[in-house]
């Protein structure tokens, strides 16, 4: 029983990381209708920057903060410089462009930092404590806390501030918002910037658990996709809950189903995506897409 609880708690922690990346995907999808395939690689790149700063002697906390700021700026620039031109265009074009960015960032990171693996320190140390006979790590608790804090902040931003209102308006109806004076382009840039920050956060949280290399986010991205699909691609709260469900399912399946083991855990999100899309294509919390003929 203790093992079961441990596996579940671990799953929630990992799931929170998936949720963070899924949130980034959702932010961009809601505002621009793009599924950003490069989200994971952007996060990996950010994590390498954090590692580079840390390895260069900057304290970990400061290194992460600097990385978040840099990621925000990079997100703005990517939207303005690269994506803007294709916005509102064909889906295929956008998929190809974000995939191009995916490959480009992956290889650039390999070029700059090499293809080897390195360890990344946890923000929360590696201490554990015992609660009711179950050993829990501070790291797991920390990750969940960070995610909850992020969700809270995002909620405040979108629901309680003028910028948030403008961002929602720009996402919902760009033309009308433009007419009432919302700078739609800036709002989209802001969305990409925030998504890049979320991705960077997911990266520095997941790196201590995996090992930092250029393929750090490859499978995490698939889990995040599954989380977003499960929760509904346009629902932030869905992304978080989806992340938890995926994280727990993955851990349980990896531990208790022999055939799956550690190697085939990646199949879990695939099956989940499949089932969700067949049974409830809009996801648990998403809005159904309605087409006008």
């Amino acid at each position, binding site marked *: 029983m203790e093992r079961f609880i441990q596996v579940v708690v671990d799953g929630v922690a990992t799931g929170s990381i998936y949720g963070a990346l899924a949130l980034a995907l959702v932010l961009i999808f809601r505002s621009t209708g793009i599924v950003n395939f490069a989200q994971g690689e952007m996060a990996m790149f950010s994590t390498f920057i954090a590692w580079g700063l840390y390895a260069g002697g900057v304290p970990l906390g400061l290194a992460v903060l600097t990385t978040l700021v840099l990621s925000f700026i990079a997100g703005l620039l990517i939207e303005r410089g690269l994506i803007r031109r294709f916005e509102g265009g064909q*889906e*295929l074009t956008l998929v190809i462009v974000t995939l191009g960015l995916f*490959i*480009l960032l992956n290889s650039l990171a390999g070029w700059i930092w090499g293809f080897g693996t390195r360890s990344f320190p946890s923000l929360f140390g590696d201490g554990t404590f015992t609660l009711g006979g179950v050993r829990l790590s501070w790291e797991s608790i920390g990750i969940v806390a960070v995610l909850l804090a992020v969700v809270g902040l995002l909620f405040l931003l979108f629901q309680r501030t003028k910028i948030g209102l403008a961002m929602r308006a720009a996402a919902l109806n760009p033309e009308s918002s433009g007419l009432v004076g919302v700078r739609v382009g800036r709002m989209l840039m802001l969305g990409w910037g925030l998504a890049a920050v979320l991705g960077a956060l997911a990266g520095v949280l997941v790196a201590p658990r995996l090992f930092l290399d250029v393929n750090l986010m490859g499978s995490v991205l698939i889990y995040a996709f599954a989380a977003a699909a499960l929760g509904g691609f346009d629902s932030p709260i869905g992304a978080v809950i989806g992340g938890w469900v995926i994280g727990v399912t993955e851990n349980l399946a990896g531990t208790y189903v022999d055939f799956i083991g550690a190697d*085939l855990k990646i199949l879990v999100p*695939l099956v989940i995506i*499949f089932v969700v899309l*067949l049974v409830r294509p809009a996801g648990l919390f998403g809005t159904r897409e309605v087409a006008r003929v």
Partner: protein
Amino acid sequence: MSERKLRLVGVGALVLLALLVPFLFGPYRVGQFTLVLAYAVAVLGLNLLVGYNGQISLGHGAFFALGAYTSALLIEKADLHYLLTLPIAGIVAFAVGFLFGVPALRLRGLYLALVTLGLAIALPQLIKRFDGLTEGTQGLTVEQPTSPSWLPFADDQFLYLLTLLVAAVMFVAAWSLMRSQVGRAVKAVRDGEIPASTLGINLASTKTRVFALSAGYAGVAGALYVFAIGFVAPEAFTVTVSLAFLAAIVVGGLATIVGAIFGALFIEFVPVYASDVNDALTGVIYGGVLILFMYLLPDGAVGLLRRIGRLVARRPAAPAEEAEKRPAVAPPEPGVPAGKA
């Protein structure tokens, strides 16, 4: 010279060049060109799906691998003649593509891209998991076809010409299919699902079949790859393969038949030269090219050639033809009722 004649001359020159390759180069080069032809078949298959039908698959490396392993296992473990494994590899990939397509194609474009990307990422692990059959990480060495004694060719020349013959059949088949009524239905689905369905085209079945067909092409290409390399291992089928195929159709030109050749040349030779400079350069070029082509040359190398051809023919672009060739701006094609005589 009219544009049509120019195109004929161009294709004729290409065929002639292709026939001359094994007699112009040494065995190593010829081997590379054999691989180009194998890739071209897979790229063509993917282009049928992406360019002509507007669906996005990021996992065609998986069907390529499936064909490769089917052929390798049949040759090595079942002692089948290698030529027989070619259609079997195609049929197996077609069948799996069909089964995969039935649920997947109820999904809209992006979701299909997600699921297939996941498939491509999971694939090497899957191959390793079934190591009883696939020999896992170790890989399988396969006996390569050799030139029969009654033919005056060296082994590498024979292998190249065999691959060329298969590729030619696949290309002609794709070309005539896309010109037929089926092809028009396929394109109509791409250009507007709702209008296409009101014209009586069954969306799900059209999409599933194109997906299966394109998987079948990848399967045949996988078998050709095994003939050319003589070895299969999970590391050869990472997600990079799928992404390279996608880069190839963008480079060659979406919704073109001949483009597959240019794309295949690109993905065979760029890594060869780029890895001399840096291991990461191939990826940088692929990524950069995907983005740059979307900016500057969305209709790829073939689109560029067409424009040059038009300049040479000294004729303003014929709008009707233009519209047919370019998926990005094409209005839904009217009047493609299924079953119309």
